[in-house]
């Protein structure tokens, strides 16, 4: 456990906790705001992993545009402000959702962690020039299409 491990663990813990809060809170607007926290901490994780361009695009597009769209949709569909327990689903649905969510997490962890978990990766600087060269070189057709 290096110190960078602990730092990434702290940032990842915030991301995971805010994601869980975003899907479980009873207040609808708070769910969108917890999504903002999740996306912001994920951008921080991308910075850790050396993907600077992806982190900035994530902040610009996801936090700056998509969450604003979500908030507009919540406003235009007359989302109830404040706690709304009568708008939450039945306990059976929530228990089924929790089981399936936990099962999906466990299945992915069982696949990913034994195969790849032990690898060490060094924190290196982002290679934005190289990404730009590839984006306009090898990836130019899908880039232009999108």
């Amino acid at each position, binding site marked *: 456990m*290096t110190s960078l*491990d602990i730092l*990434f*663990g702290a940032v*990842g813990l915030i*991301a*995971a906790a805010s*994601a869980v809060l*975003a*899907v*479980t809170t009873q207040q*609808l607007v708070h*769910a*969108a705001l917890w*999504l903002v926290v*999740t996306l912001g901490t*994920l951008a921080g*994780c*991308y910075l*850790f*992993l050396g*993907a600077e361009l*992806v982190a900035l*695009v*994530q902040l610009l*597009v*996801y936090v700056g*545009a*998509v969450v604003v*769209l*979500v908030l507009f*949709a*919540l406003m*235009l*569909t007359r989302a109830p402000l404040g706690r709304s327990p009568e*708008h939450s*689903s039945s306990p059976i*649905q929530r228990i*089924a959702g*929790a089981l399936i*969510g*936990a099962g*999906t*997490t*466990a299945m*992915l*962890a069982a696949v*990913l*962690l034994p195969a*790849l*978990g*032990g690898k*060490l*990766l*060094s924190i290196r600087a982002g*290679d934005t020039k190289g*990404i730009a060269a*590839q984006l306009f070189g090898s990836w130019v057709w*899908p880039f232009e299409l*999108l």
Partner: protein
Amino acid sequence: MIHLWLPLMLVCVLVGAGAYGVIARRNAVLVLIGVELILNAANLLFVSMGSVLDEKLHTGQVLPLFLITIAAAEMGVALAVILALFRDRGHIDLSEPGS
């Protein structure tokens, strides 16, 4: 130097939370928030594997850019559909039977 299991564990937790959001939420916009979480988990998986494998095409960072673009466009379309649904039915409660 960080161990790879930390971002991978975060990917798994995000997918689980997103799956819970898709299944157990009644409001359509909240279901979309769950879908966003799953897409972000996929992005994080791309980026973390891209930082370990050193490849010429920089796939680990170009594909997340494409995925962010596609996800943003898909959210726009999905929210437009939800707004049309709201105008037609008066509510976006997914547990009510369709008209």
